[in-house]
């Protein structure tokens, strides 16, 4: 599946969207194209000279209404490696005036003629709203509990490079599905590509009607990860462990935390993934997280930069002036 010798120019352009707001609605061909493109950037990122000038002269703005270190630095690096000018804006969000800040900030930034806006916001749908008000491409870097498309793409790339495919795999997504945009984007992507998905969580952390997303639902982790190819763990936010959704960290780890012992239920070559940042000892055992035979958590971070380069490339292609 992977094509390490290829360069971005070898691939036929197959991504006809102005924005990347979510995985839902993308075709298998479009997803495959983004992953193929990302593969070429994995190679570029492993060379001593990691920089190209594909996005020379282009302005990319990271607009984060929610704090983030890894996603924003991953996007920043992706833009820089493609030779673009990247700028980071962290907008502290006051509870009341958030919305006004959103539209006002969008209009202000739009006036600076950016080529791509990368936006994260605490409210579902906020990135789509913003995309309707600006003239440039918008990449959703996570909106509320809705979608986080580049995370799903980097997970898919990680899986594809390890397993050689992303169809006909059994993938268990475990943990706080209710509040997870990562889970939603991954469900859409893996469903589109033809894998089987299981979600594993206590009922209080499952969205209503999740079974209608085309997933199997489990409330027991050993049953849920049985014979799986991939076990994806999700982060459980601190404020949700104090009795509102689950009674305690201790009880959560006991029944839903992943340990080497529980992992024996999965296939012997099953991979363990986590979008980070991890809560060691809450959703995943610390030793297991560091076990390089099973855990691909660090690889996910590497793939993240490549996938984001691919997304920036794909969204700016139609406006690129090709030099002879």
């Amino acid at each position, binding site marked *: 599946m992977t094509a390490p010798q290829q360069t971005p120019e070898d691939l036929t352009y197959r991504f006809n969207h102005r924005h990347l707001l979510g995985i*839902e609605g993308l075709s298998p061909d479009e997803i495959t194209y983004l992953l193929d493109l990302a593969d070429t950037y994995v190679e570029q990122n492993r060379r001593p000279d990691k920089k190209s000038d594909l996005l020379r002269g282009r302005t990319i703005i990271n607009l984060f209404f929610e704090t983030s270190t890894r996603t924003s630095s991953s996007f920043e690096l992706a833009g820089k490696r493609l030779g673009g000018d990247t700028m980071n804006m962290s907008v502290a969000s006051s509870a009341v005036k*958030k*919305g*006004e800040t*959103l*539209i006002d900030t969008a209009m202000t930034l739009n006036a600076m003629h950016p080529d791509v806006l990368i936006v994260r*916001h605490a*409210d*579902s*749908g*906020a990135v*789509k*709203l913003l995309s309707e008000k600006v003239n440039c491409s918008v990449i959703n870097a996570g*909106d*509320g*509990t*809705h*979608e986080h498309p580049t995370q799903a793409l980097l997970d898919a790339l990680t899986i594809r490079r390890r397993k050689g495919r992303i169809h006909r795999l059994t993938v268990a997504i475990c943990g706080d599905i209710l509040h997870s*945009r990562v889970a*939603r984007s991954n469900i859409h992507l893996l469903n589109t590509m033809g894998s089987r998905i299981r979600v594993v969580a206590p009922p209080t952390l499952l*969205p*209503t*009607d*999740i079974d*209608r*997303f085309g997933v199997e639902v489990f409330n027991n982790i050993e049953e849920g990860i049985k014979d799986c190819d991939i076990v994806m763990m999700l982060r459980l936010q601190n404020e949700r462990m104090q009795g509102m959704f689950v009674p305690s960290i201790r009880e959560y780890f006991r029944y839903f935390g992943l340990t080497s012992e529980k992992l024996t239920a999965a296939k012997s070559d099953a991979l363990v993934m986590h979008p980070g940042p991890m809560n060691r000892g809450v959703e995943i055992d610390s030793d297991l997280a560091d076990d390089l035979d099973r855990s691909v958590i660090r690889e996910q971070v590497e793939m993240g930069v490549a996938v984001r380069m691919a997304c920036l490339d794909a969204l700016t292609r139609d406006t690129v002036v090709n030099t002879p």
Partner: protein
Amino acid sequence: MTSPRIAYLNARLLDPASGLDTHGALLIEDGKIADLGADLFKDGAPSVSKVVDCGGLCLAPGLIDGRVQLREPGEEHKETIETASRAAAAGGVTTMVALPNTTPVIDDVSVVEFMHRHAKEAGAVKVRCYGSVTRGTKGEQLTEMGLLAEAGAVAFTDGTRAVANTMVMRRALSYARGFGLMIAQHPEDPQLANGGVMNEGEIASRLGLGGIPAEAEIIMVERDLRLAELTGGRYHAAHISTRGAMEALRRAKTKGLEVSCDTAPHYFALNESAVGEYRTFAKVSPPLRSEDDRKAVVEGLADGTIDMIASDHTPSDQDSKRLPFSQAEYGVVGLETLLTLTLEPFHNGALTLLEALAKVTANPARVLRLDAGQLKRGAPADLVLFNPNTPWRIEEDAFHSKSKNTPFDGRPVQGRVIETIVNGRSIFRLEAA
């Protein structure tokens, strides 16, 4: 000073209260209905100062909109009594009943008097108001219901907020009963609805939006009905949106409790899929529900469980709606589309024309005890002349309301207001297109 005598001839007279549906004429004198019927003026031209040939169109009592947010005082950038009045007139509404969620809240006699005085200055449509059940709609201390009623408050509600505390609700129903007054509830359990912004279900889960389960409404209605039975108080459940609440109300009515309820057009004309991709104009409270709930609302209208249709007119300016879905204000404007949307269940065969009209005329008059909503001799000449069949498209740009937040923009509808008359005076006439 004698008002002119005006004759409306060649009309289809429709009066849901008496079941009248006949071709005939109606005579207005001194702002009141002096006479009406099939035989009126049969023997020759009447001697009046003005004759209006209705061309066979429907002449019915003017609409009573039992739930309207006027936004005045306090939020005049969204609506004023005057702009709401113009919207009402264009919608065939001759009486608006204002919710107390203004700033200040209508929890004091002085605010009731302010409303009445301003309504009089604005002219046109009649304005009545609810008083709040609790001071500041905070859900704690009861208002002076007796004094407020004496000043003109027609019933009591905390408007867009539920009276959540069970003991407070019990005392409100109980105390109001002493004056024969009604408590209207926004039936939604605030704790169960907490964090929700649309109907709970697959669509909310896909959009990543917090869900409000139907049970938030059902639980509150069931609790309140128990309290109504316990206290013997008069209870009204506002904007019913779920099958479960409908069933509870149906049982209570069969039992003989003095309860009533209304719904708003969006609960029978739309379902949760109208939210689409975060359309804030489809964000209402209670939320648009499932298709099964929508059907239950139509059934409730047809079998009479739902007494009345009120628009729940809630004007919001751009700044309150052009926001991420979870931050946007709840509500839609509805005065100008009340009649045409009320006619939808008639055109769809669920209601007869008289049954549909009863939900916006005779029934709200009965529930809210208003001297309006009937064609009878001596009653105020508050009338609407309309063509039930005219096809047209709702256009928010054509609204008279200061706010344009409608989920129905562009919707093809049937039935249009031609003229609106209050106290015998024409306050709106549709300009020929």
